[in-house]
């Protein structure tokens, strides 16, 4: 709508007294957000551009970044399916225990990620309930890429659900019913009617999942065993390099992660902003 309206400055932007609150906000945000972000880049390029490239070119750093991206993609892909399914079930069906289930699926947001890591270890680890059983077949999911994926799925699950379910909730029931009366099967209805309507939610959910997976630390550090060149994600690499005193190495990867996050965030804002304009 606002597209059609010529750009007239609104009363609020012209208001002179806006200077004080805006200035105060920036002042507060400076040490909290803006300066730390700047610090990453300043330190990453402290030793010059070549040092930065060298730091990034170490096999450990390359592996960590690639592994992180791989896990983030996988997590986003699996959760897109799983989260949509969960959202569909929770939104369309009324059943006893619906409320508790709704809370349980959102719980991962509330639980500290370290606790998530611990609980996964206690279940899937070598001495865990499922772990002992799987061990008999020679399967050890913990301290492997699969374990990392598991942890990331757990932690990011609510983001996909949270972006898709509200869209589904808003779709009138008659939407599906209209398709049924026209002869569309359940699958056809989902494929041609529901799914296209979910595009926006899926996109947002995927980006959120991807971003969170990229930065996940607490659960990953426990579940992965932090094995370099095997299960070490970028955040773990940064932490390990810091601990070892290689600040330059840590900063280089941190800068790359930050840029990636900015790009994702940019798309996210673009999309949600665009939606707001269309509505």
């Amino acid at each position, binding site marked *: 709508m606002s597209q059609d309206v010529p750009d007239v400055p609104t009363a609020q932007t012209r208001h002179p007294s806006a200077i004080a609150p805006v200035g105060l906000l920036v002042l507060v945000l400076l040490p909290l957000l803006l300066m730390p972000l700047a610090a990453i880049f300043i330190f990453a390029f402290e030793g010059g551009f070549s040092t930065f490239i060298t730091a990034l070119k170490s096999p450990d750093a390359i592996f960590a970044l690639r592994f992180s991206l791989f896990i983030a993609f996988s997590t986003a892909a699996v959760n897109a399916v799983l989260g949509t399914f969960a959202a569909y079930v929770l939104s369309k069906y009324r059943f006893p225990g619906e409320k508790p289930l709704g809370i349980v699926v959102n719980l991962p947001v509330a639980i500290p990620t370290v606790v998530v890591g611990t609980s996964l270890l206690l279940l899937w680890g070598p001495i865990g309930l499922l772990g002992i059983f799987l061990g008999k077949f020679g399967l050890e999911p913990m301290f492997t890429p699969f374990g990392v994926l598991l942890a990331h799925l757990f932690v990011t699950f609510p983001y996909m659900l949270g972006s898709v379910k509200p869209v589904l909730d808003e779709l*009138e029931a*008659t*939407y599906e*019913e*209209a*398709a*049924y*009366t*026209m*002869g*569309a*099967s359940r699958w*056809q209805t989902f494929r*041609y*009617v529901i799914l*296209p*309507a979910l*595009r926006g939610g899926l996109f947002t959910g995927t980006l959120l999942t991807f971003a969170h997976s990229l930065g996940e630390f607490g659960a990953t550090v426990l579940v992965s065993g932090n094995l370099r060149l095997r299960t070490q994600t970028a955040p773990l690499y940064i932490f390990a390099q810091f601990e070892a005193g290689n600040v330059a190495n840590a900063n280089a990867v941190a800068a790359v992660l930050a840029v990636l996050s900015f790009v994702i965030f940019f798309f996210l804002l673009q999309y949600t902003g665009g939606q707001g304009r269309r509505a």
Partner: protein
Amino acid sequence: MAIVLDRLSKSFGAQNIVDQVSLEIARGELFVLLGASGSGKSTILRLIAGLTQPTGGRIILNGRDVTALPPQQRGTGFVFQNYSIFRHMSVADNIEFGMMVQKVPKPEREDKRDELLDLVGLTGLGDRYANQLSGGQQQRVALARALAYEPNVLLLDEPFGALDVKIRERLRRTLKEIQGRLGITTILVTHDQEEALNVADRIGIIEHGHLLEVDRPEALYARPRSLFAATFLGTGTVLVGRALGGRAQFGDFSLPIPEEMPITEGSRALVLFRPEQVVLSSEKPDSDLPVIGRGTIIGQNFAGAARRLQLRLPRLKSTRQIAPPLPFGEEGLLVEAVVPAEVGLDGKDIWVGLRGWHILNHPKPRLLLYDAGAGPAATLNIGKHLMDRVNASATVLGVTDESEAGLDLIAALRSQKEVDLSRAVKCLRYGRPAEQIACEYAEALYEMVVVAVDYQHKTERDRLGETVHGVLAMTNAAVLVVKKEPEKYRRMLICTATGEAGKNNVRVGGRLARRLGIPSTLLHVASGSDSATRSALNHLHLASATLRAMDVSNNIHIRPAKNPVAGILAEAREGEYDLVVVGSHGPGSRPPFALEETTLRVLAEAAQPVLVVPAEEV
């Protein structure tokens, strides 16, 4: 027959949303289901489309029993009130959707789509999206979409409800035209009587899940069979009088009862006349038109070609007005008339005559009598008395929790030695009495429920027993609670308080008093030191007028007392009353077993039968 519904039913728990609806609709017919919201009309449509599963009955479309088929295989076109246009698809894709999933080849699809866009008047708008269309245009798309795959029947659920009047009218015409051209069997659901009269080949009137009447619009308007149809479709005046000597008597004027009308001598007779059937003149008409009386114009609405007048006439003896409903405190008779706009009439002393009317076949008032089987037969005796006196029909309900005891109970109900209730329907249910009474009431809508105080199960603390409490808590019926039966019915005590709740006591109590032919006393208890307040006096004055309009003679009594309960009980003890009427709150505002304290105490302590009237109109 294109659509046959055979005893179609749908219930949720104890609630019957659709109750044994049987209907046959011919090929090419445009049938309108008309009813208020919540009457079950939309549910019938959803049952036909297969979007809801019936709990009983069959649905046959074009000779094929589709009751067990999923919606995909029924071949119905459904148009929803909210349009439900797929927002991410263009208009063209929306229309093609049905054909696409049914694998119609692309070129054929496009031809059909263009043809339909033409038909609904949206040529050239195929590339638009829903958010680029107006409400009326969206509904046209929905119509085209529902017609695209050539369904057997077209079902429209309040299709024009969300549109403004002008567009609604235009779309109605479009629909009628398209329907006629394609010859597709159509059911349209609406609550808009004007819409129904406008488009329908036939109208079916639905109330509380029952299909009351089916007929052509003209016939339904001119000669409705039920009171509901008479007042729901169009406006008009309905009066209740008495059948005497083959004529319906309304005070001093009478109308002949058609021979085919089965109205027994002495029972109630209803007449309906429409505004356009009322003849007004400033001098006494010398033709032999029946004349109701002379009235005063109290209001006019100018409506272009015609002028609508409201007139007040002096009340007619032994006559009650049902429609239009009289405002509380109105004593006279209110009649609507339509005259050409240019006719000028003086405000006073206008002769009101009838050039046409319709005698209604009104069902008898229905009573639900609960009998515990053993114990005193007080409910049955009162029921019998009411049946004889007011020509009511009654259902005697027995409830038991064991299947074996059921046989004994039904036998006991059949052979009521002391009471002859051969005309009453006997009915047996299993479960807890209060719940089953509430179910029976909800299913068949009785005018009054008669329950006796359960002497076997009452305790010191709870002197009424579980059943009485339960019935009062679970139904919004007028409940007559019986203790011992009065020998005669001489006088009724109506305890009334100010406010909306107090008005209903007067209306419902007055109706019973009128049928019993007894006078009543309106009681107001002035608690504390001061006498009745101004608003209380005003209320009593209006209540008295309301009773007079029902032809119930009455007097007002103001009694000072410590509190309402004490006042009511003292009056009931000292006066010669055989029935007490008190109010209560409806189930909406009363959680189970949380009846108003006053009502409960009067119930527990008064010796007479007590009629408990819910706050809302029943």
